[in-house]
């Protein structure tokens, strides 16, 4: 049972404190478990602030997303591989990610939010951000993918030649 007016203080990895409603934190498996573990009575009041391994800037983005999605149904629906698609990101979420384009390194922000969503166990946010990253590379050439993701190649020449042959059917 969630008490919407109850507030929880989160301490971030860089020492900041943020107080949020349980209505938002109910979407985070990590925070909910921490609260439950620390609760002393049925009102589920945590003994102290919940420490999260997320920095303040990233946590603010997470809270912004949680605020928009506070009424989303729980548990987050599990999808089979056949049901998974990357073109169904809600308009608000697309605009939310688009805003990051104005930042110096949008990809860094995306990685940070993905990591935060993973650590905080927020399945909806994790799914959305992974889709967003997938959309950036879907249909691109190997060279384009490498450039977008800024990845070094650690294959030997022989291994690389083998992979090029194996991939000929999908690059042709």
């Amino acid at each position, binding site marked *: 049972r969630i008490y919407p007016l109850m507030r929880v203080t989160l301490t971030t990895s860089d020492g900041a404190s943020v107080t949020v409603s349980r209505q938002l934190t109910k979407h985070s498996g990590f925070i909910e478990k921490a609260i439950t573990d620390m609760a002393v009575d049925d009102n589920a009041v945590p*003994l*102290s602030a919940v420490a999260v391994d997320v920095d303040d800037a990233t946590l603010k983005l997470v809270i912004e997303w949680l605020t928009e999605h506070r009424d989303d149904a729980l548990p987050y629906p599990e999808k089979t591989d056949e049901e998974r698609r990357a073109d169904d990101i809600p308009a608000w979420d697309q605009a939310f990610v688009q805003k990051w384009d104005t930042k110096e390194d949008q990809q860094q922000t995306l990685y940070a939010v993905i990591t935060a969503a993973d650590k905080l166990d927020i399945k909806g946010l994790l799914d959305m951000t992974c889709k967003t990253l997938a*959309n950036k590379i*879907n249909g*691109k050439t190997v060279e384009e*993918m490498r450039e977008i993701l800024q*990845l070094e190649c650690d294959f030997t020449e022989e291994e690389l030649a083998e992979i090029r*042959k194996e991939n000929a059917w*999908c690059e042709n």
Partner: protein
Amino acid sequence: RPGMTRDLVGSVDGITTMGQISFMDLPDDMLINIFTHLDHPSRFKLRLNRRLNQIQLSVKNKLDVIELKTNSDAYELSVKPSNLLSSIPFRDFDKLELGLRRLVLNTHVNGICIVMGDSNELNTRIIDAFVHFDADKMFLGSFLHQLPRLNSSILLSITQNISHVNFSCKFHSLSTQDLCIIRKTMIESDCKLQYFYADVGNEIREYFAKECFGVTLDDDSTHIHRISDDNSFSHTRSCFQSVEGDVQSTIRRNYLTFEKVITTAHSC
């Protein structure tokens, strides 16, 4: 629970700032999540380093159809649902074979359709690669009415990996012994193959009936001459049928089938 609180607060130590994260800093399950949202060609192209190459193997691909046709100088490969159409020249045969052998490692296919024009060693190798797919159905045909020779290894892979198989051409290189191997494997082992169909000519049909059931068939199966009493069978004017174990074997004028059945009743 003070201990729990201490543990949680302690988790703040060892924290890293999220300012400098790269794609490769994401944990494996995040990378797998991203892979699953890519179309199939992109999944293979994302093998950009050794770690991603390994992770790609743990992502199960599910394809509706893989279709391979040959034209005068190239293999035409079609993959759905990716709607990919790829033309691979015969001279690049090894690329097709290597690609298929990588694809089979983590791919389930609903339907495989192969239509070949030639019976040669290279096409045998292509079929060998295809029969390693975990597949529901496979159709094998030839517009020249001739398919490559299939060795016992290929036949065994068919029985282990594919549920329904249809050899829809006069498959001259499929011998009586080959058919016996397939039928015997279906009867004696817990194999995946549930239904097998093959077009056969009169000669193979007759040899097979004699070899497997101890009967001789005339051209239209009107008359069956029983040589041995070991097998139970029934027949009508155009059909010979036998059930052994849970496999029903049916021989008709132009084709034969082996089918796993639930009941032991058999009739044409």
